């Protein structure tokens, strides 16, 4: 992880080269799932964001229970890029603004946890979440000045929120 590539390749250039690979993979998988979809890919500062535009009915299928299908598709896209020799980059998939809505819900959850921790003065263990969801919680609570850490392994991994220590 800490190894820095010495090549001067511009990350944006690297992300741009990944676009056709990601598009072709997603269009093929979705085709095999019998889902008609339009894939919009945006190049962002840390990787690619892909919007899958489809009918609401197919959207539900692609999201799956608690986003399970969408998470799976996103994870496989990342693995395929790795198999194709691309360096690590962030890949996010969204269907009909699901991720955005979910992020809003998580931010509201984070606000609730913040006040709970401030009132009790004791650490709070969140429910287990995916890496992406933990990231939202970490960022939101960090902005509110609270210290967070992830604990546990695999599917038990969760965020622990600590009350802020008084600055010396």
């Amino acid at each position, binding site marked *: 992880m800490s190894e820095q590539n010495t090549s001067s390749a511009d990350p944006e250039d690297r992300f741009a080269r990944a676009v056709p690979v990601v598009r072709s993979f997603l269009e*093929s998988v979705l085709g*095999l799932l*019998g889902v008609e979809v339009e894939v919009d890919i945006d190049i962002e500062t840390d990787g690619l964001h892909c919007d899958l535009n489809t009918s609401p009915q197919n959207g539900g299928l692609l999201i*799956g229970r608690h986003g399970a299908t969408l998470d*799976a*598709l996103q*994870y*496989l896209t990342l*693995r395929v890029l790795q198999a194709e020799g691309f360096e690590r980059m962030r890949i996010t998939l969204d269907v009909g603004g699901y991720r955005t809505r979910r992020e809003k819900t998580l931010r509201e959850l984070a606000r609730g946890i913040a006040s709970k921790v401030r009132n009790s003065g004791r650490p709070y263990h969140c429910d287990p979440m995916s890496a992406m969801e933990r990231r939202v919680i970490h960022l939101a609570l960090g902005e509110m000045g609270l210290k967070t850490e992830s604990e546990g392994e695999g599917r038990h991994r969760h965020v622990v929120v600590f009350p802020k220590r008084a600055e010396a």
Partner: protein
Amino acid sequence: MSAPKISLKDLVTFLARALVDHPDQVEVTEISGAQTVVLELRVAKSDLGKVIGKQGRTVKAMRAILSAASAKLRKRAELEILE
């Protein structure tokens, strides 16, 4: 939408081939029952890790995609990796 033409075998074959170093050695056998479809996946020995993934994450992700596809077919699908 009434008669979706989805081949679970093609889906698994495509996903596996996209992940491995030796796509020519990917073999999928589909065993269809009344309610359940079993898909047996064989890959080159050196590619086993690629289709299983750390803590089985890759195979878990393939199973999630497969269950979305099989839901459309109103069947249950199982994916097994044979060594």
